């Protein structure tokens, strides 16, 4: 009679486990794979800044809005890291060739997420879920219709190279402390996502964004203090060699990423303070003890948004 229980337990466990293949050394430790990626990556890049040439209605800040929303959906749905940059690649390539009204932009973002998720995930995002995230401003049928349109415009070239494809290759070639690897990877992935939200990175080759992100992660974690080979210029040269990039290009890319990070963190902080202030004002007007509230907020800053909801 114990059996059924065991089965149930097993099912429950399976439900939330993402089955992940082990890293294949034949793929990640083989230089030919890296060289192939470097050869084909340019094929999937948007070629012109479409805001000047193609788009009339859509402005850079709107791309940022839709990219931000897409990233939030990915975060909330715990999508694979590659899904977001890949979807942004689709979006940019589509906007490069088709003039689009801003009213369609969110639909387009949803379609790109839909496609990227199908390509990269074993359990892809469903159409209904994506429609829900647009607050049902689009229908599933529209999503499916436009999926075809986007596929056609991108000529069904969906397996674009993303910066993530390079991360393991790069990490493998750096003398990094084993215990810091996953942290560096996580930080680099965050930088890649951050870059995807910013149009100034849209036409950079993925390999450069990847090297820049790893560089920024290694510097940011101050690993250069213990390992000489990771120190400043040494690191840049090492990274440049991995992806055959010019050292100067790489350096400037890394600087741009660090700058973007700084401004993001600043914005994040300002936003946080604004939210806290708003919460405090609201609480004060209701006559709540603001002293204790401000304390609890500063210790658990993430909860502020929940309070507002």
């Amino acid at each position, binding site marked *: 009679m114990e059996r059924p229980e065991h089965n149930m337990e097993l099912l429950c466990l399976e439900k939330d486990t993402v089955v992940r293949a082990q890293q294949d050394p034949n793929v990640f430790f083989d230089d030919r794979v890296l060289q192939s990626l470097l050869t084909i990556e340019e094929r999937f890049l948007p070629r012109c800044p479409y805001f000047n040439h193609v788009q009339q209605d859509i402005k850079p800040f709107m791309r*940022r809005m839709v990219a931000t*929303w897409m990233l939030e959906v990915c975060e909330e749905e715990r999508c694979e890291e590659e899904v977001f940059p890949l979807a942004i690649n689709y979006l940019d390539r589509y906007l490069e060739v088709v003039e689009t009204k801003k009213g369609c932009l*969110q639909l387009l973002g949803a379609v790109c997420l839909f496609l990227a998720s199908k390509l990269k995930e074993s359990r892809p995002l469903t159409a209904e879920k994506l429609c829900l995230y647009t607050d049902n401003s689009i229908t599933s049928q529209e999503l499916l219709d436009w999926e075809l*349109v986007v596929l056609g415009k991108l000529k069904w070239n969906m397996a674009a190279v993303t910066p993530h494809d390079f991360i393991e290759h790069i990490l493998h070639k750096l003398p990094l402390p084993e215990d810091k690897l996953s942290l560096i990877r996580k930080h680099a992935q965050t930088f890649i996502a951050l870059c995807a939200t910013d149009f100034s990175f849209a036409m950079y080759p993925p390999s450069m964004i990847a090297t820049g992100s790893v560089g920024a992660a290694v510097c940011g974690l101050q690993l250069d203090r213990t390992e000489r080979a990771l120190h400043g210029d040494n690191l840049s040269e090492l990274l440049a060699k991995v992806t055959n990039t010019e050292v100067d290009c790489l350096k400037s890319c890394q600087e741009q990423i660090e700058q973007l990070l700084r401004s993001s963190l*600043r914005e994040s902080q300002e*936003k*946080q303070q604004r939210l806290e202030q708003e919460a405090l004002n609201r609480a004060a007007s209701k006559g709540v003890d603001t002293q204790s509230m401000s304390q609890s907020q500063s210790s658990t*800053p993430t909860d502020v948004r929940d309070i507002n909801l």
Partner: protein
Amino acid sequence: MAFHKRVLRSLGNGPARRNLFGPVDREQLQQDYHTALMQDLEEASRRWGFNFLTEKPLDEGDFLWEGVAGAKVPRVYRSSTLRKGLQCSVEPTSLSEAAVSTETGSTSAGAAPSPVQSGKENVPGTPERNTNSLRDLERTPEKRSANSNMLKRKQTNITDFYQAKRRVVGTPRKSGQ
């Protein structure tokens, strides 16, 4: 707080579920959708020297088109071609697969799975069951362009159909038990 949370929060804007740019102009959207698909189709026609709506080779083009019996083509290709035609809603081409399964059903007592319920999300609408379409399917483009009226009456492709039927009946046995 996790590093990436702190970084990405700067971008955040409240709940992820939100409408970014106000109401969508549905009519315009539908119109744009059809225009875009037609554009794609025209482009493909030019590229391949083939009119995909009438399923006839174009006079000028880089390719010489040659007819192949429909049943010799893997099913995947047959259905998608016809679905594409259906989607563009220019020609009332009905889904061939439905026809195939209808015919098969009569002989194999419904053992064959209906390919219409293939579980694909991107199949627009429910295809009508139309036995006539089987002939459309089995006819080859070459012959069609030559004397399509005659072919509609002739049962030239009965052997092709037999092949197709056999495959359909065989499928569940392979995967089932």
